[in-house]
């Protein structure tokens, strides 16, 4: 260790990896992983989220799983909880859409309206 900068670099890098143990207020991505979700392909979706977040070093975003939300026909369903507690429900997800949600919603704060449950409902009518 020859300089403060070196120490700071290690600190930042490691903090990103372990941040989830302290941050309570970041964005939460919740993937429906009941039988219906898994059968519809929720696992690749979740992996895509994890991978994409890792690539962008978005360590304060957590990815968790949940059970069946009830609208099995729209699986895989992903809910994104914003820091303020409000949430957006995305339906019929796939890995590409997951990457889009990360880029547009999580990074830039623009909800992908066409992927939400509201859009799907409207299309059904």
């Amino acid at each position, binding site marked *: 260790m020859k300089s*403060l900068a070196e120490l700071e670099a290690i600190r930042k890098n490691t903090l990103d990896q372990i941040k989830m143990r302290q941050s309570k207020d970041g964005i939460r991505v919740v993937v429906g992983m009941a039988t219906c979700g898994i059968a519809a392909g929720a696992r690749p979706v979740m992996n895509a989220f994890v991978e994409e977040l890792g690539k962008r070093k978005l360590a304060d975003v957590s990815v968790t799983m949940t059970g069946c939300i009830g609208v099995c026909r729209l699986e895989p369903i992903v809910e994104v909880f914003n820091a303020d507690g409000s949430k957006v429900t995305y339906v019929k997800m796939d890995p590409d859409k997951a990457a889009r949600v990360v880029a547009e919603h999580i990074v830039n704060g623009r909800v992908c309206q066409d992927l939400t449950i509201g859009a799907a409902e409207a299309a059904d009518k």
Partner: protein
Amino acid sequence: MEFYRAHVLVCGGTGCTSSNSEKIRQEFIAQLNKNKLDKEVQIVVTGCFGLCAQGPIVIVYPEGAMYTMVRLEDVQEIVEEHLIKGRLVKRLMAGDKDHEDPSKSLENVDFFKRQVRIALRNCGVINPENIDEYIAYDGYKALAKALTEMKPEDVIAEIKKSGLRGRGGAGFPTGLKWELTSKAKGSQKYIACNADEGDPGAFMDRSILEGDPHSVIEAMIIAGYAVGADQGYIYVRAEYPIAVNRLEIAIAQAKEYGLLGKNIFGTDFSFELELRLGAGAFVCGEETALITSIEGHRGEPKPKPPFPAVSGIWQKPTLLNNVETYANIPVILNKGADWFTTIGTEKSKGTKVFAVGGKINNTGLVEIPIGTSLREVIYDIGGGIPNGKKFKAAQTGGPSGGCIPASHIDTPIDFETLRELGSMMGSGGLIVMDEDNCMVDIAKFFLEFTVDESCGKCPPCRIGTKRMLEILERITGGKGEMEDIEKLEILSKNIISSALCGLGQSAPQPVLSTLRYFRDEYIAHVKDKKCPAGVCKSMMSYVIAADHCKSCGICARNCPVNAISGDKKVPYVIDQEKCIKCGVCMTKCPFKAIFKNA
């Protein structure tokens, strides 16, 4: 960068390790592999969370869900329910059992809510075997600051200003000790860490070394810079294998990063650190004996002065602090002495870690601001006394301390108040006693310990404590006389004034303190030949109440020495000559017909 969606923290402290946490960790790895989650979920071994009574403990992030008393067969459920389906396994969660929704996060558990964790800041949070995680939580930042921005005298001034006092027991001002060592004459100086924790029931230092070894290492390097030493020794007992192992790993990592060695942070300051293992002699926790042992001699104390600050290891000026004292140093430099002085009381700043044990629900490790009342520790943090029993006294300071009776339960705990009460802060063991504890027996227990551990160098300790123990054995054996109580007091006075080291000088404290608050119990033992708590075996007997006895014979069948006889329709009787007072009959009797006659 590896990105995991969940971290599973498994406690690797001694408490949880002895209740199988290592096997639980392996089971998690196996279950994660089986479910192909090993790339998504990271397993991290941490130090002690403090809630040892509830161990083994597993915490799952990002939820911060704390699972307690986890058994091997629970692991599959946690993996399948929590990690795969995202449903918390509520039956394993900590917190209020009556409450509908168990508290999700550990910050909400009463046990943690009232604590202020400075020395234990990283215990249970980071992986102690990974220096990067320590650095991530501001580790080695204080060292960098000291070496690059502060002069040695600035560091000492900051520590002095913080009001930090030695956490090993006596409460000597740490900054003053640093200053004395820095001003002592001599080109070669040493830094030493006292990790020879020996009080029965105390495990604060062990938990810090196991959970956050780098905090001690960092502080010792800072101390070396402040007093002008280039070599340090950590004297740790060999009975702490996990702590020794983690220290070895931590020292190797610090060396690899150049935090130990030559030209640290590009300055001309160099520092080396070595471990010295103690063989488990209690006396080696005494500073002069510890130094003698580090030098390779038999661990025996020497008269003071000269103090170690003037003439310590190999007669060179030596700064010797306790583990917990060191663990506070980096935080003080990072957050400033002004911040530190806002915690604690006027004369005692900061926090103190206590190992709480005995008759208490939440056995474990707590860190509280100095000045917190005993009531808060026992009832709010400790969860009260099991089985609704009445609190009788708390013992602090181990074999050098004394007890605080129930009448003083609202006393704020600090160095001065405890001394006024005839006890001492000590290293932080806190043993809670309820109405079923006999105070004479407690005093006897601590004296047995001292007699065992006396190094034998000076007669007051070697012979005096033995004589005191003999008197206590007479009293608890039902053969005591009233003069015995006086003799105890005279002997105590003489030992205190004539023993060579601090351990001998304080050895009579448990007797004096129980005599002060529970003299009536001593008198009951001597005059009435009765042990009011029903502990001393010579003074109690088990009897069968004839009118309750249904002559079932269960007691007789279970008696290990065949002391019970009787027949159908005839009440059973215990032969008091044969009875060894084990109490098995009483627990086995289905009709509660057997009583303890104290």
